[in-house]
C-alpha cells in the first residue's frame, strides 16, 4: 500500500487527474461563455461584452457572483435531500472523465468495461434532478423532476442500444481500444471511423444524447416558458452553479463518447516535430468535441421545443425501433462476414 503511494505510477496518475480535472473545470466555465456568445451571434445581438475583452472574463464574474449570492433554502423543503441533490448530480458528471481518453497518454484509467462505467455513472446523475425537484417542495420543480425521470428512462434505452452496433464491430468495451480500432483509412483517404459503418446508430445516439442531457429541443425538464426553470427553480448561489456545471459536464461527456465511438477519438493527421506529435491527438479530440458542442448550441438557438407527448412518441416509436433494427442488421452482417 505505502509502496504504491510513493511509486512513480501513482504520481503519474495523480498528475493526469490534476491536468484533466483542471482542464475540464476551466473548459466548463468557458463553455458558458461560448454558448452565450454563439447564441448571441445567431440571434444578431452582441452577447456578453462588458467584462474584459469580448466578455472573456464573464465566467469569472459569474463564478464570483454565484459565490456571494444568498443561499436560499425554501421553507418546508427537505433540507437533507435539497442540499444533497446538486452534489449527487455533479459527482457522477465529473467521475465519467476518469475513463475518457483525451489522448494516447492522457487517460486516468483504461477500464476493460469503460463504456459501461460511463453509462452506469451517468445514469446515476438523474437522481440529482429528481431529488432536487422533489426536495424543493414546490410545484414547478416537481413537474420538472417527474418529466425528467420519465424522459431519462425512455431515452437511455435507445442511447444504450445505439451503441451496441459499434461494440459488435469493435469487439471491445474499453474506450482506448475503441479508439485504436478506428485507426487507418479506407482507399487511402476515408478515415476508418465508425460513423461511416454505423450512420443510423450515430443519428440515434446524437438524438438520445441531446435528450439525456436535457438540452433543447428536448429540455422539457426545465422548459422556461412552462416551468420557470424546471427542477432547479428554487436553487440559488453555488448549488445552482453545481447543477449548471453538471449539465455542461454531461454535455462534454456525451460529446466525448460520440467522438470516441463514431469519429475515431483522438485519431487525426499527424505531422511536425516531436512536441507537436505529442500534442496533436489531444487537439484533434478536443476539436471534435467542440464541433459537437457547436452543434448543440446551434440546435438550441434554432429549433423550438418538442411537446411532451411528441417527445415520448419520438423516443419510443422512432428512436427505439431504429436502434433495434440497426442491431439486427449489424449483427447479421457481422455474423455473415
Amino acid at each position, binding site marked *: *500500500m505505502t509502496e504504491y503511494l510513493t511509486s512513480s505510477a501513482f504520481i503519474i496518475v495523480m498528475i493526469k487527474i490534476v491536468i484533466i480535472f483542471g482542464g475540464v473545470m476551466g473548459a466548463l466555465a468557458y463553455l458558458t461563455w461560448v454558448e452565450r456568445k454563439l447564441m448571441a451571434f445567431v440571434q444578431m445581438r452582441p452577447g456578453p461584452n462588458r467584462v474584459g475583452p469580448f466578455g472573456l472574463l464573464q465566467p469569472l464574474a459569474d463564478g464570483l457572483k454565484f459565490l456571494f449570492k444568498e443561499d436560499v433554502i425554501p421553507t418546508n423543503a427537505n433540507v437533507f435531500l435539497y442540499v444533497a441533490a446538486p452534489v449527487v448530480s455533479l459527482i457522477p458528471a465529473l467521475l465519467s472523465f476518469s475513463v475518457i481518453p483525451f489522448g494516447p497518454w492522457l487517460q486516468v484509467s483504461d*477500464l*476493460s*468495461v469503460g463504456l*459501461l*462505467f460511463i*453509462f*452506469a*455513472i451517468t*445514469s*446515476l446523475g*438523474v*437522481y440529482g434532478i*429528481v*431529488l432536487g*425537484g*422533489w426536495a424543493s417542495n414546490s410545484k414547478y420543480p*416537481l413537474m420538472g*423532476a*417527474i418529466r425528467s*425521470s*420519465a424522459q*431519462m*428512462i425512455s431515452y*437511455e434505452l435507445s442511447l*444504450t442500444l445505439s451503441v451496441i452496433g459499434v461494440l459488435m464491430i469493435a469487439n471491445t*468495451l474499453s474506450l482506448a481500444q475503441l479508439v485504436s480500432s478506428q485507426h487507418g483509412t479506407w482507399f487511402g483517404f476515408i478515415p476508418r471511423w465508425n460513423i461511416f459503418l454505423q450512420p443510423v446508430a450515430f443519428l440515434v445516439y446524437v438524438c438520445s444524447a441531446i435528450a439525456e442531457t436535457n438540452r433543447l429541443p428536448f429540455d422539457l425538464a426545465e422548459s422556461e416558458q412552462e416551468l420557470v426553470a424546471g427542477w432547479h427553480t428554487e436553487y440559488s448561489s453555488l448549488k445552482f452553479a453545481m447543477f449548471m456545471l453538471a449539465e455542461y459536464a454531461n454535455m462534454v461527456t456525451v460529446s466525448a463518447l460520440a467522438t470516441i465511438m463514431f469519429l475515431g477519438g483522438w485519431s487525426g493527421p499527424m505531422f511536425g516535430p516531436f512536441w507537436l506529435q505529442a500534442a496533436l491527438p489531444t487537439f484533434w479530440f478536443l476539436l471534435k468535441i467542440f464541433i459537437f458542442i457547436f452543434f448543440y448550441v446551434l440546435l438550441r438557438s434554432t429549433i423550438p421545443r418538442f411537446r411532451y407527448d411528441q417527445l415520448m412518441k419520438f423516443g419510443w416509436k422512432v428512436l427505439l425501433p431504429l436502434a433495434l433494427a440497426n442491431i439486427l442488421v449489424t449483427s447479421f452482417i457481422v455474423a455473415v462476414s
Partner: protein
Amino acid sequence: MIQVLFFLFAALAVGAAINVLVQKHVLYSALSLIVMLAAVSVLFILLRADFLGMIQVIVYAGAIMVLFTFVIMLLNLPENEDGADRLRWLKFIGIPLGLFFLFMVVATLWNVEPLRTAAPRLIGSPQAIGQSLFTDYLLPFEATSLLLLIALMGAVIFAKKDL
C-alpha cells in the same frame, strides 16, 4: 486492501438494506435501496466481475430505481403513512416465505465448494458471461426472457383494456 474494501462495502450494503426496512418514508427506503445496489456492485467488482457490477448499476440503480422514485413522486405519498393495518394478513404469508428464502440461500451457500485458487482474470468478463449464457445456460436464459416478455405484455394489457 481488497479485504478492507470488502468489509467497508459489505457493511454499507447491509446497513442500507436494513435502512430500507426501517425507514418510515417510502422515498428514503428507495434511496437506501439505491445505495445498497451500488455497494453490491462494488462487491461484484472486487470479485473481478466488472461486467456484472456495471450492469447492476445500469439496470437496477440507473433504470429500475428511477421508475420507483418516479412512481413515488407521482403519487406523492404523505409522510409517516402506515399501511400496516391494511396489510396485516401479509405477515402470515411473508414471514414463512422469508424464512423459506433464507433457508434456500443458506442451503445453497452451504454446498458451495470454496475456490482453492484465485479466480481467473477472465471469469467475469463480458466474453465469458456471453459464452456461458449462450451455451451452458441457454435454456434458463431463454426461459427468463420469455417470462419477462409475458410480464411486459401483461402490463400493456392491464394499462390498455381496449386494444
